[in-house]
């Protein structure tokens, strides 16, 4: 069983942009691999090449583990390589205005809390990180807050994901395997599983 995830505390990385898609998080050419090892080096590779001041290349945020972003983070492809690359880069939680759903699900199954905050709070968090990159942020799943210095803001996360992370049951495979009898029963009741016999 995975470990319980109640809180993530660490310094931040500010990247408050909207519609950051998974091709930007990990360009497709890095999906030419048979393991997820090494993906961390290529997170935001092309954005970093084109923007010298990209936060992922900024020494001030090099040890950041809480990513602060904007609306519709992780849209596009279903590639789990995207959260895998963030995780291997060192990101342990993402706070954004909203998430694309497949990306959100992939984060949860890797034990990365992906929580939503208001735009105003995200901008305050980003400003606080910019002002003092050594400031720690805490994403607290028990109280559904993100705090940073004097600021404590509410965050939201679907209850099922929150429960799974808090109880350490976000690796669903073990749970899914438990229902093998029910799986067999359900299959028998679905007409096409029995070739419409």
């Amino acid at each position, binding site marked *: 069983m995975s470990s319980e995830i109640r809180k993530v505390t660490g310094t931040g990385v500010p990247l408050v942009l909207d519609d950051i898609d998974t091709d930007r998080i990990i360009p497709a050419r890095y999906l030419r691999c*048979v393991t997820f090892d090494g993906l961390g080096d290529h997170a935001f590779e*092309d954005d970093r*090449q084109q923007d010298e001041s990209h936060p992922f290349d900024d020494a001030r945020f090099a040890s950041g583990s809480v990513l602060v972003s904007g609306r519709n983070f992780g*849209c596009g492809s*279903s590639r789990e390589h995207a959260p895998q690359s963030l995780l291997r880069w060192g990101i342990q939680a993402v706070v954004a205005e909203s998430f694309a759903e497949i990306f959100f699900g992939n984060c949860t199954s*890797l034990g990365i809390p992906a929580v939503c905050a208001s735009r105003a709070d995200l901008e305050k968090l980003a400003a606080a990180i910019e002002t003092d990159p050594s400031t720690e942020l805490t994403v607290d799943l028990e109280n559904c807050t993100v705090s940073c210095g004097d600021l404590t803001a509410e965050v939201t996360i679907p209850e099922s994901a929150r429960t799974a992370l808090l109880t350490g049951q976000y690796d*669903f495979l073990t749970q899914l*395997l438990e229902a093998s009898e029910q799986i067999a029963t359900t*299959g028998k009741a*679905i007409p096409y599983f029995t070739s419409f016999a």
Partner: protein
Amino acid sequence: MSERKNLFNKVWDLHTVREMPSGQTQLMIGLHLIHEVTSPQAFQMLRERELRVKYPDRTIATVDHIVPTDNQARPFQDLLAEEMMSAIEKNCDEFGVRLLNLDDNRQGIVHVVGPEQGLTQPGMTIVCGDSHTSTHGAFGSIALGIGTSQVAHVLATQTLALSRPRVRKVEVNGELGSGVYAKDVTLHIIRVLGTQGGVGFAYEYAGDVFERMTMEERMTVCNMSIEGGARCGYINPDQTTIDYLRGRPFSPEGEAFEKAAQWWLNMASDVDSEFDDVYQIDAADIEPTVTWGINPAQSVGVSESLPAGESDQEALDFMDLQGGQPIKGQKIDVAFIGSCTNSRISDLREAAELVKGHRVAEGVRAMVVPGSQQVLQQAEEEGLHTVFSDAGFEWRAAGCSMCLAMNPDKLQGREMCASSSNRNFKGRQGSPTGRTLLMSPAMVAAAAIHGEVADVREMLEPAHT
């Protein structure tokens, strides 16, 4: 049993194994499609846990993302791609999964192959480690893109842990104008509802526009549901669906087919079934549509000019376009007809019809990549390959090609590509600074001939210009 149930809820309820401690549903999966990019790590997870594939006959694999579309001799020149090919071959062999490999004439883009083989059927739950799995919703199935950990879950248990989305009916009624295709309908929906408009929803596409569409057109629409943020999209099965499936290799046969057809029709949304939301669009408002930005909602009708708002600036800068400029007349460098959105035989026929008797404009690199070996074979029987080749298009082998450029087909530098694919994200087509204009295959053909974005309606109806 509640009356007035929509298809989504009927299918979901039928496939529900149980409610999980997290509150999610453990959902039975009817068809699991696999490809070479998102599966190797999943098979490794099975090995590490000493698990087998639970329902190998409900699992089928093909290769599409990394295959070259010109020289397919093995080993591939790209050794990383070769390693992935070897991995899927080994994994399918070891775990007893059927693989439609390059030497099998059923190989192709996974979302083209499933339907054409009759694997995709109404009332099913279908998953694949690929976001464009939504394509299969065209048959009235719940079709979801999933991550690699979830691929492992389905391999090992034939189930997934999922939260039930709400269902929005997106109705499009009226007559589509000449030169307005399924691609324009889906681009228009994404434009009006936004890239995030569908988050939390499954889309039911309803209304007479979809009812009149062929299965291939319906696939184009459902394919891009994910670009609008929806978890999936579907169209209710009807006689068009049944006629398409009759006689396909994996369709039921004889009496079983008649039983299946009856069941499929019964799975359609009940008359007056309830929805969490309804959105209506008038078909007359839809023009041939072209994206100008870096997400698929950033589009205009071909007769419109680009917006110039503050929030548009990042995209305009990346594309090197000006707010207020018309999209028509925008020069292109590359024309690409292909991808799981638009690489089926009807797409190629429409494009070929426009191309016939014309030449690709000087300086434009143009290519046609059929979605599957079956599409390729059909097109060659009809002589479409000659039409394209004579006009100056390259005629390629089946694969994902330049839609995501994980293979040798890529944009170079700042090239501007008129593309029938589904994503215009920064760097999507293989050059980090390359630029993509999404449009219908017919519009790509028109752009290839003119060397710039053109209005396909002027080629279809020259008398009106």
